[in-house]
C-alpha cells in the first residue's frame, strides 16, 4: 500500500469523526428521555470501533480483489435475503414490526442483511457497469438499453427479495442507487429522461386515479390503511392521534429548537424511536437551526469529498463506486431528515452515521472506507498510464 502526501485526507476523516460525535451525543440525549433501559450510546460507540476495525481490513484490499470478490458477495447476500424470505418466523429470523429483516447471530446480536446488501449492490453494479463499458466502447442508444437491462437485472433480484420481507424503504433506496448508477454509467439521456418522465407519470396517474376514481383506487391499488402515512404526511395535525403523531411530535421537537437550540440535554419533547429513525429531531431540538445546518453541511461536505474523488479517478469502476455511495448516503439523509420535517412521508430509514444501529453503521463505515481506499490508491493509478 503506497501512501503519498495529499492522499491521507485528514478532512475526510475529520468529517466522519464529527459525525460520530453527533451520533453519540444525540443517542445519549435520546436515551435520557427515559423510554429506554439500554445504554445505546455506549453500544453505538462500540459499533463505531467495531466498524472502523472492519473498515481498516477493507483498506487492505485493492480494487482488483474487490472486483473479483464482489460476485461472491453478491451471490451470498442474495442467498441470505432469500433465506429470510423462505424462513418461517423462527427465533433466529424473527418478524419485527411486521417485517422479517433480521437475522440473529448468537453471541453477536441481530444483523440486518439488507443493509449490507445495499453496499454489495453498489459494488456489483459498478462491476457490471464498468465491464459493460469496457466491452462496448460506443454508447449508442442500443448499448444503453443493454446496460439498463443488465443493471436492472442485477438490482432487481435483491430489490424483489427485500420487498418480500417486506421492507419498502430499503427497496426504494436500492432503486435510487440503481438509477444513479445508470445516470453515471452514461446511459443515454433519452432513456434517463424517459425514466424520469415515467416515474412522474406513474405517481401522477396514481394521484389522478385517487381523486377521479376513488372506488377503483381503493379496490385495486391501495387500501385505505396503506394511505395513512400519506394522509399523515399531508395533514399531520388532522391525524395527530394516529399516524400523524410521530410527525407532529417530531415537528414540535425540531421547530421548538428554533434558531440556536435549547442546549445540550435540554430537549423536552417526547419522541418515539428517538434513538434510531427519529434521531434528527433530538439533534435539531438541542442545537437548533445552526446545529442542524452544520450537520447537513457536514453530510454535504462528505458528499463533496466523494464527488471530487470520483472526478479525480481514471477508472470508471471507482467513479461508479463513488456515485453509488453518494446515492446511498444522499437518499438516506434526504429521506430521513425529510420525513422528520414533513418533506417526505415517513419510512423506516435511518440517518447515516447518526442513528443507532450496528448493521447500518457498519455498512456506512465500509462505504466510507471504500471511498477512502480509492483516495489512498489514487497515486497508483495516476502513475499507471506512465508504466
Amino acid at each position, binding site marked *: 500500500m503506497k501512501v503519498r502526501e495529499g492522499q491521507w485526507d485528514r478532512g475526510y476523516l475529520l468529517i466522519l469523526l464529527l459525525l460520530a460525535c453527533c451520533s453519540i451525543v444525540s443517542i445519549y440525549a435520546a436515551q435520557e428521555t427515559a423510554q429506554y433501559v439500554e445504554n445505546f450510546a455506549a453500544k453505538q460507540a462500540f459499533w463505531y470501533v467495531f466498524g472502523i476495525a472492519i473498515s481498516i481490513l477493507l483498506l487492505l484490499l485493492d480494487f482488483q480483489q474487490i472486483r473479483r470478490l464482489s460476485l461472491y458477495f453478491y451471490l451470498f447476500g442474495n442467498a441470505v435475503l432469500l433465506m429470510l424470505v423462505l424462513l418461517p418466523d423462527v427465533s433466529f429470523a424473527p418478524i419485527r414490526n411486521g417485517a422479517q429483516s433480521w437475522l440473529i447471530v448468537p453471541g453477536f446480536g441481530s444483523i440486518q442483511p439488507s443493509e449490507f446488501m445495499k453496499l454489495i449492490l453498489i459494488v456489483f453494479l459498478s462491476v457490471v457497469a464498468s465491464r459493460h463499458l469496457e466491452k462496448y466502447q460506443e454508447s449508442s442508444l442500443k448499448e444503453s438499453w443493454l446496460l439498463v437491462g443488465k443493471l436492472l437485472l442485477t438490482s432487481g433480484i435483491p430489490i424483489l427479495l427485500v420487498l418480500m420481507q417486506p421492507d419498502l424503504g430499503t427497496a426504494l433506496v436500492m432503486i435510487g442507487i440503481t438509477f444513479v448508477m445508470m445516470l453515471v454509467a452514461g446511459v443515454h439521456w433519452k432513456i434517463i429522461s424517459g425514466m424520469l418522465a415515467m416515474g412522474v407519470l406513474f405517481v401522477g396517474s396514481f394521484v389522478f386515479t385517487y381523486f377521479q376514481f376513488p372506488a377503483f383506487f381503493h379496490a385495486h391499488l391501495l387500501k385505505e390503511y396503506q394511505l395513512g402515512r400519506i394522509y399523515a404526511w399531508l395533514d399531520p395535525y388532522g391525524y395527530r392521534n394516529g399516524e400523524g403523531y410521530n410527525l407532529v411530535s417530531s415537528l414540535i421537537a425540531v421547530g*421548538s429548537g428554533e434558531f440556536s437550540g435549547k442546549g445540550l440535554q435540554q430537549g423536552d419533547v417526547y419522541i418515539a424511536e428517538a434513538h434510531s429513525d427519529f434521531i434528527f429531531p433530538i439533534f435539531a431540538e438541542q442545537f437548533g437551526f445552526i446545529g442542524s*445546518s452544520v450537520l447537513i453541511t457536514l453530510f454535504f461536505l462528505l458528499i463533496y469529498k466523494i464527488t471530487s474523488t470520483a472526478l479525480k479517478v481514471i477508472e470508471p469502476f471507482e467513479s461508479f463506486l463513488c456515485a453509488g455511495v453518494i446515492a446511498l448516503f444522499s437518499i438516506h439523509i434526504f429521506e430521513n431528515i425529510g420525513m422528520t420535517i*414533513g418533506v417526505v412521508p415517513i419510512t423506516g430509514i435511518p440517518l447515516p452515521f447518526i442513528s443507532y444501529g450496528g448493521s447500518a453503521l457498519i455498512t456506512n463505515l465500509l462505504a466510507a472506507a471504500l471511498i477512502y481506499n480509492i483516495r489512498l490508491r489514487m497515486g497508483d493509478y495516476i502513475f499507471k498510464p506512465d508504466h
Partner: protein
Amino acid sequence: MKKKKKKKNHVPLRMNVLFLGVFLLFSVLIFRLGFVQIVDGEEYHRAVSSTENVTAKLDAPRGKIYDDTNQIAVDNKPIYSITYTRNQKTTPEEIDALAKKLSLYISKSTKSLTDRDKKDYFIYLHKKEMEKRVSASERKKLSDKAYNQRLIDSVTKKDLASLTKKQLKVLAIKSEMMRGYALSPQRVKMGATQEEIAVVSEHLNELPGVDVKPDAQRTYPFKGTFKELFGQVKSIPENALSYYQSHGNDRTDLIGTSFIEAQYESLLRGKKSTMHYVTNKSGKPVGNPDETDGTRGNDISLTVNLKLQKQVENIIEKRLKQVKSGGTAYANRDLTEAYVVMMNPKTGAILSMAGKQYNKDTGNYKNAPYGAVYNSFAMGSAVKGATVLTGLQSGAITPSTHFYDAPLVFGDGRKMKSFHSLGNIGPVQALEASSNVYMWNIAMKLAGYDYPHKRYIDKHVEQAFRTLRNSYSQFGLGVSTGVDLPSEATGYNTGMSDQLAQAMFFAIGQFDTYTPLQMAQYVSTIANNGYRMQPHFLKEVREPSVKDGKLGKLLYKFEPNVLNRLEMPQRYIDVVQQGFRQVMIGSKGTAAGIFRNKTYNPAGKTGTAEVDKKSGLDNKTLVSYAPYNNPEVAISVVVPKIREGQTNSEIASDVLDTYFKMKQKGELDQ
C-alpha cells in the same frame, strides 16, 4: 487514449449532475428547516411550553358530627378501597374477565344484586342458548328493545337458581366496575381487608385499571341510635351529578345523600388537598406541583342528645312490645309503629326524634325516626288547642263562651256527640275533658250554621275550612316546619267540602293529617306564648379539631329562629295553656290519671283519631310541654293504629320522666 477519453467524457458531467441533484435535495432540507425552526419556530416553542394543567386530588375526610353533649356521634375510619378505572375502549368482555380475576382475590357481597341484574348476566353468559329460545320468525317481528325484553322475560327462576355463588360474586364485582364513567375511578369494594389489599396489590400488573386507594368510611359510635337521621354518604346520584359538579365535586366523590349528611354537605365536606401540576405537551410535569393542603370538613354538633335519644328509642320499643303482647296482643295486631319528637319549645332545638317500626316477618323493631318527618296521621283531639284559638281569633267564641255539651242532633236525624256529655262548659273545660261538641260549635259558627235553629244564617262551609287551615298553619300544622332536613312532609290536605260535618271533623283533628314533627311545633308554639320556632338539629359548627377529644374553634352557633307569632292576644293563648294544664291535673283531665302527680308540672292534650270506627282502630296521640309555667321541653307522641292501651300517654310519661331525670343528673346540656 482516445477510447479512454470517450469514457471519461461523460463521467465528470454526470457526476456533476448527480452532485447538483444532491445539492438541490440538501437545499430543500435546509430551506425547510429554516422554515420549521426559524419562521415557525416560535409557534412550535409555544406548543411545547403550552402547558396543560393537571390537578391531582386527594380526598380529605368529612367533618365529624357531635351530639348535644359533644359526644362523637359520627366519626371517620381510614380504610382502603379497591377501585377500578375503565377507559372509553374497555369492552364488557374485558371487564368480565377482569371481574373474574378480581373475584379470586376479594370477597364481595351479592346482596345488592337485583333479579334484573341476574337475568342480564344469565343472558350474557348463555348468549347462544338464549337466542334459541326466541324463534327466528318471532325475532324478525321484534324491535331490538322488544327482543331484549323478550329475552329477559324468558329467563326463568330455575335459570337464575343455576347461577353459582362464584358467578354471582363475579356479577357483583362487575356491576360495581361498570358503574360510573370511563376514566373515573369506581369503588369496587370499600374497606378491603389487609389480605385483600396485599393480594390485589401483588397482582396489580395483571389487573389493568384496578387500584388500591386510601379511603374513609363513616363510623357510628352510638351504633344504631339516630343513625338513619344522620343520613348516608354515597356516590353522587346520576341525576344530581351536574349540581354537584358545579359545586366543585368530582364524579367519584362520596357525598351526603340524605338527612343531616345531605343537609350540611357543604359544611361537612372536606377540602381536598390538591397538587397542581403543570405539564408540557408530552405530559411531563414541569417544576414542582403547587400544593394546597386539604382540610377535614368542619365538625358540626347537633341539638340531639344521643343518650336521651337512645332511651327514647328504648321506651318506644318497650311500650310497643308491652301492648303487642299478652291480653292486648290480638287487639293490637295492626299496631306497627310509634313516634316521638322532643324539642325545646323556646328555641326549636330538637332533643330527640325517634321512631320504631315493627316488622311482622322478623318480629324486630327497627329504628325509623324519619317517620316523624315523613309520615302523617290524623291526630285527633290533640289539635283542639288550635281549634279553640281559631275560634277565639275569628271571633266565633270569646274566652267566656260556653256551650252545652250534649249530643247534637241534626235535621237529617244524624247524631254527633262527645265521648261523655259534659254539660255547660267553657273553653278550658272543653280542652280538659276533650269536648267534641264545643269544637263543633266553633266549626258551625265558622260555617255560618245556627245550630239551635238548625239552619244556616249565611252558609259558608268552605270559608270555615279556609279559616281553620289558615289558623292551623300559624302553628305549623299543614305547612313546612322549616326543620333543617333536605325535605319533610307537610301532611295531607284532604281538600274542600261543603259538608258541614266535614268541617266539624276537621275541628277535632279527623280530617287533615299532620306529621309528628308538626305536632311538636304546634304544641311548642302554644307553650312558647305564640311564637313558632324553627325546629332544628344543628347546634354549632366548628373547625375540625386538631386533637382527638378536643373541639375545634367555634365558627357558627345556631340562633333560635322565630318563624311567626300567633296573631292574637296573649289572653287567648292563656286560655289554651290553662286547658292543657287541666288535661294533666283536672278532675276530668284526659291524661290526669297518668300525669297528675308529675313534679315537672306538665301541660298537654291527648288525641284519639278514629281510623276505622267499626273495628275500633285509632291513632292515639299526645302533645305536651313542661313545666307548664316555664316550658323547657315539648313533645309529640304518635301511636297509630292501636285498639287497646294508653300507649301514647305511657310513652309521653316515660319520655318526660327520663328527660327530667337526666336533667337532674346534669346529663343534658341546657
